[in-house]
């Protein structure tokens, strides 16, 4: 098997997971479990294609994906923080809204169903890194990706700096861990929760854009394929630490890339089993972590 292309695919597949992972991590750190990541990402993917096509620029499409993500983040925050809707119910509702809404808009705007691939819409140009691309193996692996892959890598240290070096990041963590303490220190609990959810929405929009215009310039119904939930699992796996969350996303990306390749070869295993592999690994990883945490406690 070609290791280089396997790792190359790992990086491509894990990029949107890392972006969404950072989004999930922000809401986790502010004390909210965000299961609406999926819907925000799907909406971002749709917005990137529609606006990229209508405005004639894929980059403007990406920008609008971020705007739509932020708007959905704000909407979600309004529902769960200001209007005190249940976090899980509101999250589910937003996901349904995204699934149904994108299909509906595709139908009435373009009279299409299933897939939307407007003519003339181009994908984001691949980035070749001078010098690096000339290095054998490493160049092949690291250079020539869609630009949002590199953005996803940059987002990891940025998230870390935001949370652990900036004043507002410290406030977000304080709110998530001990809201009363934050409040008596004059920090707006609701303000921090809004902020974390809106920033998360923007990252989800970006992740969606990568899915739709990063590789092939097209939108498919339900194309996010539960990546929002996988990213959420990665956040738990890593206890919401940015670097470890990214590692968990890379791990999932690796198994996803591996199972694609195994499907192409004639293994004795049924394809359905292979498709299960990345998810199985996530379950095993989560079980190992929680068992390690609990085993000393007795029954």
């Amino acid at each position: 098997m070609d290791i280089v292309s396997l790792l190359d695919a790992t990086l491509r597949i894990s990029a949107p997971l890392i972006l969404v992972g950072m989004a999930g991590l922000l809401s986790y750190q502010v004390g909210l479990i965000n299961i609406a990541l999926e819907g925000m990402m799907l909406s971002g993917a749709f917005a990137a294609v529609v606006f990229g096509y209508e405005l004639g620029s894929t980059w403007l499409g990406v920008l609008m994906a971020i705007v739509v993500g932020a708007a959905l983040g704000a909407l979600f925050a309004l529902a769960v923080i200001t209007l005190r809707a249940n976090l899980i119910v509101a999250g589910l509702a937003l996901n349904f809204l995204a699934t149904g809404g994108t299909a509906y808009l595709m139908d009435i705007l373009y009279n299409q169903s299933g897939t939307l691939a407007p003519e003339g819409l181009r994908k984001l140009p691949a980035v070749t890194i001078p010098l690096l691309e000339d290095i054998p193996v490493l160049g092949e692996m690291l250079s020539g990706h869609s630009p949002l892959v590199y953005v996803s890598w940059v987002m990891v240290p940025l998230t870390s700096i935001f949370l652990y070096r900036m004043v507002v990041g410290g406030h977000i963590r304080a709110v998530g861990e001990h809201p009363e303490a934050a409040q008596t220190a004059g920090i707006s609990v609701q303000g921090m929760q809004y902020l974390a959810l809106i920033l998360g929405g923007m990252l989800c929009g970006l992740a969606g854009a990568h899915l739709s215009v990063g590789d092939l310039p097209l939108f498919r119904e339900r194309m996010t394929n539960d990546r929002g939930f996988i990213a959420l699992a990665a956040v738990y796996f890593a206890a919401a630490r940015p670097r470890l969350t990214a590692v968990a996303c890379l791990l999932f990306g690796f198994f996803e890339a591996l199972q694609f390749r195994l499907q192409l070869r004639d293994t004795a295993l049924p394809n359905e089993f292979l498709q299960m592999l990345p998810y199985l690994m996530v379950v095993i990883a989560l079980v190992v972590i929680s068992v390690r945490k609990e085993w000393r406690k007795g029954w």
Partner: protein
Amino acid sequence: MAYLKMAGITKYFPGVVANSSVDFEVEEGEIHALVGENGAGKSTLMKILYGMEKSDAGEIFLHGQPVTITNPQAAIKLGIDMVHQHFELVPSLTVAENVTLGYEPRRGPFVDRQTMVERVRRLSEQFGLQVDPGARVSSLSVGAQQRVEILKLLYRDARLLILDEPSAVLTPQEVDDLFEVLRRLVAEGRTAIFITHKLREVMAICHRATVLRAGRVIGTVRVTETQPETIAQMMVGRDLEMPRRQTSHATPDRPRLIVCDVHAADDRGLPALRGISFAVNAGEIAGLAGVEGNGQTELIQTLVGLRFPERGDLVLDGRTITRERNRTRREHGLAVIPEDRNHQGLSLPSALSENLIATRYQGAPFSRWGVLVPGEIRRFAQRAIRDFDVRVRGPNVAVKTLSGGNAQKVVIARELAQPPAVLIAAQPTRGLDVGATQFVHNELLRLREQQTAILLISADLDELLALSDRLLVIFEGALVGELDRSQATRERLGLLMAGRAGEAAPA
């Protein structure tokens, strides 16, 4: 003119008057004790001053000027700040981050970490509050956490510090350190309100004391001109009565509970119990003294069956129960009054009758073939309500509507419905008023006469000294002392609790 004046403060909660036309004055530069029993309205009054509760009537004046305080930020702006009984600290943040939270020194949008640590270090040296600014709060002892809270107030430049029962979680020696800090604070012109119900502390450090009882001010006294007995009587409205211990009922050669070399880890996997061994005899109350957090919780959980020891054995009436689950232990005669009444002792939303049968519904007479028998349950509950004098409308009332004393009676009625072989009584009178406390004490003494072996775990030294036949002292997961009642004094217990066993030896 008084520095702070609260006039005619009245606060209603559903069904109770927490404060009734309270007048309260504090002079600048004094340490003013606010004393009273649990439920007397001390905390409510201070929460109103700190902007956490809104009063239904009354006014607050600072330097003679009327002020409105609608939230803690407003109080902090006026120089009024509070150390809560349950610390308002973020465990995963460092000392310096907690102290400066919300008021961080900045460089642009970033935290100026160097300045932050420097300022906190300087502040801690200035006031003798020793604590490492870079340490994570979760790794600190309770005493050190309290120093962080006080630093936080000083960093925000509080002029009036409210301390809500600050000594409850400290060793006697840590209390001395706290007092030293308080003296330094008032020496430089700050003012402190000290909430407590420990008279010794009032006498030791405070200038004046205001006594609250049942939401009303009973009076304000100058401490130097007052005897502690006077304040005590103002608090309870009658002479304090500690139960008189009868002569010993212990049967020394009949140990009903034996704990042998027990080792156990805490939730983080760190050693919490390091080789605990003791026995409790029939008809004996063994008191376990210690500052909270030295392994008492883990010991209780191990005895009850919520935590299995890594090593060692537990024997109940000659039967090894080390690996038995809780239900089996109960069948063998174990009863438990848990530390946390509201979470471990009771199911608050459930009915009183359901709580009463929670440990015995599995078989006859309360259930047949897996189906509950309502008539039996009601009869049992009515008898328990009568026998234990629970003040309640009927057996179907939800337990969450009961007062603390009545709720504890429900726990006791369930646990003592049949006299147990061994009773683990953890903080059995915490948060109870005088009447309910006496009831609990009498129940414990009654059981002792009936040859139950009782392990009493309490944070209240007076209670331990009044009830115990023998005292054990736990420190950092090990028993560091065992004293017969006749040898036990506050001072020796205090030194043992602080881990200074050498100094506690009789001269």
